[in-house]
């Protein structure tokens, strides 16, 4: 996704960079920990995914703390205290017109959020704290971390304290180095790390009235899970939820786990994950007529019958049939020729039962939910199916373009959406011209040379390679090569399969 527009809120003489994304009815402010950069972090798919998930149900507000990212940097030796960060948060809320927001605070950001919630209860709708702690002296071991910053800031080595599982991924570490360099100068990074060693918001905890969810990854590499438990025990009514993983950075690791927990806590609804997208060949089959020649559309029993038949046939072609009550049968396949062959068999079997089906085939991206799928490509496939005559299989030009050499024959028919630019060309499948699908399982022995055929005959008689070599006055090595070539040409897995094929062909 394209990064949202960066705006600046005025906090005293300082400008705090922020972004707003999403159109939800409530505001969710992401209060990040150590460093951030509103421009660079959108390059990371994990950040993108988490931001997209959160902004699907809220108006997500992101900002860079002063001294980091796109906000004013100032003198790195003058450490901004938590009070200053609270003022900056206030300025961002004012600029975005947020009267009451959910604060999603991570690590040091959790401390800022806690303090804010205790001081401005009217402006906090709820709190979500991730990887947080009340007292850094108790839970944060910063000595090594600070030594790493001192020694190698800008090379991505701080990644080991945020996402250890990705530390050995050179590309990601390189990117993390860029993220470090563009998020804070070396001295500012040191100052931030130093600041976080002196955080203690314990006294604010009993004053938090907002409903609070504490999230903590069980093996958080930088802040132990006990810190989260401690928060949950001391904040009135707080709920604790452990998430699997070692990542301290909230937007690395399993970000869906994080988003699911936050969405359920804030909306009360268990989220359905929508975003598994797949490029697939789609088959839409409609029942248009049965034996009595009466249009039937949504006859439940008949639909179930065709559904079962489709499931059986599609299963053989590696397809998946959508569950649920639909006026038509929907299936998706890995490749176009499999989908076409399934459609041909389906139409034929249905016809034998006196049912006329029409099918539409198209290729495009679909969003796969557990047992169903949706998307614009499916709409197109439905329109194509609606254009097909009873017993006809219509495919879009994308299907035909991607299946040359598959032994499929098509004739061009009308176009879909004549008024749209460009219209989609449609082709009818000609089933009678379909070449035998199991061609490779019954390969023609004619492709073999005379010598290879001789070798094959002897193989089928059960002779070993040395025996064949003696019989044909060849070297053992040559026979071996002939056998290998035979298997390759006939696309057979083993010598035994070759013997079986030769025996079968002799019988025929």
């Amino acid at each position, binding site marked *: 996704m394209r990064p*949202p*527009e960066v*705006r600046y*809120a005025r906090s005293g003489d300082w400008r705090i960079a922020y972004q*707003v*994304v*999403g*159109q*939800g*009815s*409530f*505001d969710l402010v992401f209060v990040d920990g150590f460093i951030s950069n509103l421009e660079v972090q959108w390059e990371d798919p994990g950040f993108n995914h988490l931001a997209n998930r959160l*902004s*699907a*149900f809220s108006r997500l507000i992101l900002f860079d703390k002063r001294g980091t990212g796109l906000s004013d940097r100032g003198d790195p030796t003058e450490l901004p205290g938590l009070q200053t960060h609270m003022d900056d948060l206030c300025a961002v809320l*004012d*600029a*975005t*017109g*947020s*009267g*009451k927001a959910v604060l999603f605070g991570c690590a040091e950001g959790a401390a800022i959020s806690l303090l804010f919630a205790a001081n401005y209860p009217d402006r906090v*709708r709820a709190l979500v704290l991730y990887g947080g702690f009340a007292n850094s002296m108790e839970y944060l071991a910063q000595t090594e971390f600070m030594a790493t910053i001192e020694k190698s800031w800008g090379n991505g080595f701080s990644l080991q304290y945020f996402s250890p599982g990705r530390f050995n991924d050179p590309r990601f570490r390189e990117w993390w180095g860029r993220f470090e360099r563009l998020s804070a100068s070396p001295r500012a990074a040191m100052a931030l790390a130093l600041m976080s060693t002196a955080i203690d918001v314990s006294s604010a905890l009993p004053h938090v009235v907002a409903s609070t969810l504490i999230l903590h990854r069980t093996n958080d590499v930088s802040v132990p899970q006990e810190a989260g438990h401690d928060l949950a025990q001391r904040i009135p009514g707080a709920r604790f939820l452990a998430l699997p993983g070692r990542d301290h950075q909230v937007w690395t690791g399993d970000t869906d786990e994080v988003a699911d927990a936050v969405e359920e806590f804030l909306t*009360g609804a268990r989220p359905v994950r*929508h975003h598994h997208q797949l490029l697939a060949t789609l088959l839409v089959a409609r029942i248009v007529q049965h034996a009595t020649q009466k249009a039937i559309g949504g006859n439940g029993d008949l639909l179930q019958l065709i559904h079962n038949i489709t499931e059986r046939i599609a299963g053989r072609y590696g397809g998946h049939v959508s569950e649920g009550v639909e006026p038509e049968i929907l299936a998706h396949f890995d490749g176009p020729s499999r989908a076409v062959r399934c459609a041909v068999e389906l139409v034929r079997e249905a016809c034998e039962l006196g049912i006329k089906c029409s099918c539409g085939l198209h290729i495009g991206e679909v969003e796969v939910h557990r047992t169903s799928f*949706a998307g614009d490509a499916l709409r197109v496939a439905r329109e194509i199916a609606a254009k097909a005559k009873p017993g006809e299989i219509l495919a879009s030009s994308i299907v035909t373009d991607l299946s040359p050499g598959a032994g499929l024959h098509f004739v061009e028919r009308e176009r879909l959406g004549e008024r749209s630019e460009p219209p989609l060309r449609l082709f009818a499948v000609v089933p009678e011209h379909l070449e035998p699908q199991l061609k490779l399982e019954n390969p023609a022995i004619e492709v073999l040379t005379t010598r290879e055929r001789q070798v094959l005959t002897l193989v089928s008689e059960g002779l070993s390679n040395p025996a064949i070599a003696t019989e044909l006055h060849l070297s053992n090595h040559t026979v071996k090569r002939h056998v290998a070539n035979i298997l390759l040409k006939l696309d057979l897995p083993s010598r035994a399969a070759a013997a079986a094929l030769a025996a079968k062909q002799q019988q025929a």
Partner: protein
Amino acid sequence: MPTTTVERVNGAAIKQAIENRDGRRLASFYADDAHLKVIDRNNPPSRPREVHGKAAIATFWDDICSRAMTHKVETSIAEGDRLAFSQACTYPDGARVFCLAVLDLENGKIANQTVVQAWDE
């Protein structure tokens, strides 16, 4: 317990409540089992965000009305038990939102509402 005044919903009442960011009054316009459907960039027509029931709708309006922004209900059309209006909103930093809403009324209360919105982003 506060008693709710029974107010028949009409374009003028909606305009006044929205423009005054009066979430409580807005919530009182809805039937107990009302359905509110929101369609926007993140909630496309095949998966709109749905808010069911008066309590959830009250929270929805409470959240929106807590924002320090201006709302202007511009066009309002009524036909029998159906009502439609357009709404232009502006955040303090200048970001604008435009919404169209279509409502079904039952016994003077909103039973169904569909909102389509577009945002500056």
